[in-house]
């Protein structure tokens, strides 16, 4: 499909109308209709009939495919589609070890997948807590990215003073460290190319009248520690074996996450911060454990973002229906809660006067159903959430499943307008 002729004035008006629709939802005002958003990763490969691998490595190609999909579906907001897929060259330059991706551990037509491992053994909690930057430089980065291996010889700086600092400087002559510098500099250039492609895509979308649904992202402190440091087995047993240490680390991680994401969100010009969540579901821990270990640092992180005029958009993975009463405890009209498998009708009942909702057309219907099944699923959400006063941004449960037939996606967008307009 060729791009329709869109005048600058019309595009600006369309952009403003779409953005207002989202902001009305956030502020718990009635939007002119239910917004519907495009969030996808490897569904774009399905859409374009290209391999996952190509989508990960061809920056311009990924942007072109994403633009075609946007113009085809005409969403109210768009996710950073290029940034979410075309990271192959960056991962390769860094020799990144926490995921496997097409050509690196999984097949050419499979999505990248995170590897659950213990990346920080329990005895290193104290090192992380005492000096997180030193821990990252000398221990964590060399462990998770081959390009940083030589950083294990990064000289100890803190505690040096006056002439003694001269001695420390010699450490920078380490051949391993110098080799790592070269690799990291090269990787930085590749990473900058990805960032530039992302920036161009966002600008192009704005020119066409489409705001981004988010640009900046962060994580919940517990989840970041669980997924990327301790691993599932580690974080789960830490709750029993070293709860105090875990809580201390969650608090520290929260501060670090906020310091990272606030400037990033400000620089992006988009206030919505996407926060995919992992360890919150009903089935993973008891209510007491959730209230003790998971929720306090995450709630505070959301409050920290809200205090900076940012809009947290947590995506509550899996079924979090039993958590609704607990997670209600944030200021009204300041956040978007995106639910994957939680009961969205119940979510409207419990949270309708607190947050905007997002979601959650079933992945199984999208991937295995017919367009009329998708239509019915959207109608159900309109009837039971939007028409009952819930401020909902329609999306699939976690963005479009990679395998969704294109006709089903078109049916989802068509139904969103048909029933809520």
């Amino acid at each position: 499909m060729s791009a329709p002729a869109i005048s600058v004035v019309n595009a600006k008006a369309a952009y403003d109308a779409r953005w207002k629709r989202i902001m009305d939802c956030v502020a718990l005002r009635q939007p002119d209709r239910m917004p519907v958003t495009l969030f996808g990763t490897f569904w774009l490969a399905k859409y374009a009939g290209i391999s996952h691998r190509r989508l990960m490595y061809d920056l311009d190609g990924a942007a072109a495919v994403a633009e075609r999909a946007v113009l085809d579906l005409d969403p109210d907001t768009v996710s950073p589609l290029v940034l979410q897929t075309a990271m192959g060259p960056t991962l390769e330059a860094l020799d990144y070890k926490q995921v496997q991706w097409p050509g690196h551990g999984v097949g050419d037509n499979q999505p990248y997948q995170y590897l659950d491992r213990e990346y920080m053994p329990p005895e290193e909690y104290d090192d992380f807590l005492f000096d997180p930057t030193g821990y990252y430089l000398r221990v964590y980065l060399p462990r998770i990215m081959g390009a940083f291996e030589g950083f294990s010889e990064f000289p100890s700086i803190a505690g040096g003073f006056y002439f003694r600092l001269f001695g420390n400087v010699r450490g920078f002559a380490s051949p391993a460290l110098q080799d790592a510098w070269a690799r990291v500099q090269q990787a930085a250039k590749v990473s900058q190319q990805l960032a530039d492609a992302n920036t161009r895509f966002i600008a192009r979308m704005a020119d066409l009248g489409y705001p981004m649904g988010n640009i900046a992202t962060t994580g919940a402190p517990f989840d970041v520690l669980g997924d990327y440091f301790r691993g599932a087995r580690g974080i789960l047993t830490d709750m029993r074996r070293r709860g105090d240490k875990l809580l201390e680390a969650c608090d520290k991680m929260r501060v670090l996450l906020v310091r990272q994401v606030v400037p990033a969100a400000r620089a992006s010009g988009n206030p919505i911060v996407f926060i995919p969540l992992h360890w919150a579901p009903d089935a993973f821990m008891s209510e007491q454990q959730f209230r003790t270990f998971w929720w306090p640092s995450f709630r505070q992180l959301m409050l920290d973002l809200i205090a900076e005029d940012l809009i947290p958009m947590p995506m509550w993975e899996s079924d979090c229906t039993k958590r609704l009463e607990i997670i209600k405890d944030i200021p009204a009209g300041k956040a978007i809660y995106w639910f994957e498998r939680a009961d969205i009708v119940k979510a409207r009942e419990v949270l309708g006067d607190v947050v905007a909702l997002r979601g959650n057309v079933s992945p199984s219907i999208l991937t295995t159903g017919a367009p009329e099944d998708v239509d019915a699923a959207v109608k159900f959400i309109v009837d039971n959430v939007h028409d009952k006063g819930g401020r909902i941004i329609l999306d699939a449960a976690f963005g479009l499943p990679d395998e969704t037939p294109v006709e089903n996606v078109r049916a989802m967008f068509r139904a969103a307008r048909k029933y809520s307009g």
Partner: protein
Amino acid sequence: MTATNEQEAQLVHHLAEMEEDEGLELAKKMLLEEGADPLRVLELCRKAMDIVGKKFEDGEYFLPELVLAGEMLDTIGAIAKPLIKSSPGEEPRKLGRILIGTVHGDLHDIGKNIVTFMLDINGFDVKDIGIDVPATTFVSEIESYKPDVVGLSGFLTLAFDSMKDTIASIDQAGLREKVKIMIGGGQIDETVRAYTGADAFGVNAVEAVSLCKGWMGVNA
């Protein structure tokens, strides 16, 4: 000297209540200092795991407790098993054989591991064949292991087609009527069950256990 009944009850209590340090210390003392029968100690562990499983089913325990219980069991097992001198005799009869694995293309295993653990402590023989398992491997494992139930696990939506393909391969190999097939994972629901041709799906480990017990004619 052999372990006293009070001591035995204490060991079960420590393990079931997640008192890891006390439980491991007592187990070591019984095994290494007091010459307790290692088979008896393992039986006590099994009793404790029964309680853990019940508490999980009742919604008192969650993943942290299941994982910790598994680690305590592994630690005690590693000490006890080398101490077993005589042949253990006939293994207690198990409720049935379960073959489980994450389907091709999917590398996730947290849910599968929890289901494996729960089936094991509920008296099933479980063979876990890992992640990213091709359909042909499931077929050959069914032929050699002869399970009563096959569990297909998958977290990603790509697992829908992998599960469907795996079940089709089992069918083509003439094995479909010989096994019950259950599926589970983050996105699985009745729509996916119908799509794949599985006999049943479960949304958690408790449902997996009750499905298997139902198929084996055991009261859940």
